């Protein structure tokens, strides 16, 4: 039965200004006052969100009186996008299920990707090993212990060709967690696509390409901020022109969070980074409506379910407002806060590790209630090692059950309008904005990173969190409550790296170097050096070098000589 217009008006007034019930004649304000007086005689356990925001025992129309139903909450797919970036949300298309994966050589990872796609994964997320992320070849003495460990080893275009052999690039969206060397990996991916006969304008996917959080939290920086930011703008500029559907930057808060930041800090620091990138692009003369639609975001979803939902809703609203009001964006796509999430990370425990399955499932639920575009659910054994095929499958199935059995995907922003969720969304938006304004006053994110301020705040928060766990103020099931001896942990079947991987990868690199045209490599590297010294884009010579099978170490070697390396500030 459809409500009549009068009923609609009354319902509307109850939510906003009138607060008078037509049934009883009393105002809600009076009723709530009476109720709260009754409450004052009772003992309540104080409660806070994981970010330390104090919580009321219940939320009512009074809690959201100051919010405008249209200007603050609005409709999905419309400014300020509080309720989602698309009007149809998951009824249009289910989120992308993209499990971060990669290890060993390109050959082994290619097998894993094909297997994941066969299991119903809908995108590929490439984990790269540390030497690749740091611009070192697999035969570099510094790289020896890390080849193929936390991701796949990529030295030259040949490895990227193997990685995507038999995987049609035009029908799968690929995300690369790559930062310092993002321009090189992008060049390799574009070249492989070209050789598969796929036009660059058809390619979808993401490179992380977010150096600022590397200085703070993840540690795969190479060059100082200024040339790093220049390389980032080069890739963004290149993608606008040549690969307009490829997200050339994914501003990541996830690593702040996993390093210890609260949900509020995670959101604030991420948007402060994004503001820096927007400013750099504008300084290059790029139009905000042209480049901002290519910006996406990446976050960790941790355990506090409602705070996570509110964080994503607040993020959408705050970003839309910043883009429109601060940067003058006019195209709605330039105001959309599209984001992927990862569930797991530092919330996973080594104790009773199968409890992690439950944690990750709740985190995935929160992500989807928050309107995520892509979700990565970590496997329960990732507190120890890279997942086995079996645990990786369960992690993917966790999302599939959520998507196809629970009904959560049927309605856009199902928690929208909840007094609590709206009040918390508003609170997080205000808290995050005040951190952003403080960073602005301190000269912006780059200077706050160079002084080590952000690093210190995150480390202190991590320490406080650990102390709360050890003092029992923060319960972790199986760790400080309901813990027991676990002799069975010794018997866990964990993934192990094939010890021959490093040698195989070094042999492959030697083979490529022996077969390529070394004059073409030298010429390309010289062009790259010239571009680095000028103010020209470095993308064309990087593409040239990649096509000539120059290695990542050779390409970064030139840039290291020209730009030097970042000096880590003292941060404890």
């Amino acid at each position, binding site marked *: 039965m459809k409500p009549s217009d009068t009923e609609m008006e009354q319902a509307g007034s109850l939510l906003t200004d009138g607060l008078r019930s037509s049934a009883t004649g009393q105002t809600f304000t009076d009723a709530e006052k009476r109720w709260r007086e009754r409450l004052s005689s009772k003992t309540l356990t104080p409660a806070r969100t994981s970010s330390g925001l104090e919580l009321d025992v219940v939320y009512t129309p009074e809690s959201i009186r100051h919010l405008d139903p249209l200007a603050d909450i609005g409709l999905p797919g419309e400014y300020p996008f509080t309720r989602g970036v698309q009007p149809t949300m998951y009824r249009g298309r289910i989120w992308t299920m993209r499990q971060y994966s990669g290890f060993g050589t390109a050959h082994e990872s290619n097998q894993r990707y094909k297997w994941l796609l066969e299991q119903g994964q809908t995108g590929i997320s490439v984990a790269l090993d*540390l*030497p690749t*992320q*740091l611009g*070192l070849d697999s035969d570099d003495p*510094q*790289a*020896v*212990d*890390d080849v193929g*460990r*936390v991701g796949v080893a990529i030295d030259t275009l040949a490895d990227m060709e193997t990685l995507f052999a038999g995987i049609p690039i035009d029908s799968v969206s690929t995300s690369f967690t790559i930062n310092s060397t993002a321009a090189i990996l992008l060049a390799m991916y574009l070249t492989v696509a070209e050789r598969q006969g796929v036009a660059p304008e058809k390619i979808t996917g993401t490179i992380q390409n977010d150096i600022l959080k*590397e200085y703070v939290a*993840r*540690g*795969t920086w190479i060059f100082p901020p200024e040339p790093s930011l220049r390389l980032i703008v080069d890739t963004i500029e290149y993608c606008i022109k040549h690969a307009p559907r490829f997200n050339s930057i994914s501003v990541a808060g996830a690593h702040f969070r*996993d*390093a*210890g930041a609260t949900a509020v800090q995670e959101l604030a620091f991420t948007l402060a980074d994004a503001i820096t990138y927007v400013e750099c692009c504008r300084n290059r003369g790029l139009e905000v409506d042209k480049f901002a639609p290519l910006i996406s975001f990446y976050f960790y979803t941790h355990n506090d379910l409602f705070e996570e939902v509110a964080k994503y809703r607040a993020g959408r609203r705050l970003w839309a407002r910043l883009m429109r009001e601060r940067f003058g964006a006019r195209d709605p796509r330039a105001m959309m806060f599209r984001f992927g999430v990862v569930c797991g990370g*530092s919330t996973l*425990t*080594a*104790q009773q590790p199968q409890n992690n399955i439950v944690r990750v499932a709740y985190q995935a639920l929160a992500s989807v209630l928050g309107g995520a575009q892509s979700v990565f659910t970590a496997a329960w054994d990732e*507190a*120890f*090692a*890279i997942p086995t095929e079996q645990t990786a499958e369960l992690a993917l199935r966790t999302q599939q059950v959520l998507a196809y059995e629970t009904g959560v995907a049927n309605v856009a922003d199902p928690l929208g309008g909840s007094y609590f969720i709206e009040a918390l969304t508003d609170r997080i938006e205000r808290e995050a904005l005040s951190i952003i304004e403080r960073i602005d006053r301190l000269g912006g994110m780059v200077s706050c990173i160079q002084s080590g301020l952000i690093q210190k705040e995150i*480390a*202190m928060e*991590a*320490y406080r969190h*650990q*102390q709360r766990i*050890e003092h029992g103020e923060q319960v972790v099931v199986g*760790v400080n409550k309901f813990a027991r001896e676990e002799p069975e*942990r*010794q018997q*866990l079947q*964990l993934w192990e*790296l094939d010890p021959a991987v490093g040698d195989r990868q070094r042999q492959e690199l030697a083979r490529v170097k022996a077969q390529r045209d070394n004059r073409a490599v030298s010429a390309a590297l010289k062009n790259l050096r010239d571009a680095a010294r000028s103010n020209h884009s470095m993308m064309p010579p990087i593409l040239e070098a990649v096509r000539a099978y120059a290695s990542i170490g050779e390409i970064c070697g030139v840039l290291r000589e020209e730009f030097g390396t970042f000096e*880590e500030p*003292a*941060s*404890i």
Partner: protein
Amino acid sequence: MESKAVRILVAKPGLDGHDRGAKVVAYALRDAGMEVVYTGLRRTTDEIVKAAIDEDVDVIGLSILSGAHLSLTQKVIEGLKAAGCADEIAVVVGGTIPPRDVESLENIGAAAVFPTGTPLSAIAPKIREIVTARRQQHESR
């Protein structure tokens, strides 16, 4: 008799950039009254051995989350032996260490292993115990 404060070098060997654990442990050891030096990221094992000798520490605490703990720990211990300091400087290891590798690390010569999930409150007492035992051994020689 009041004993000299324990000095420890908290170090990140290899290419792994995850330093949350290293920093949290550094804070905790400092609060427990130890003198803590932190190397920062991406130190080679040679740099770590040299820093430990220069800083005159009792203990090196390696933090490794990349899976490369066996080879990196071995190199640090070999470096200390080559420098003739293996008796003065103990090596302890923390990070993402699968249960099966704890014993292997001890066999290589790690004085203690603190895998993911070790409470902070367990780390300082264990380190103090190791240092006290070594100092006593030294004096009795």
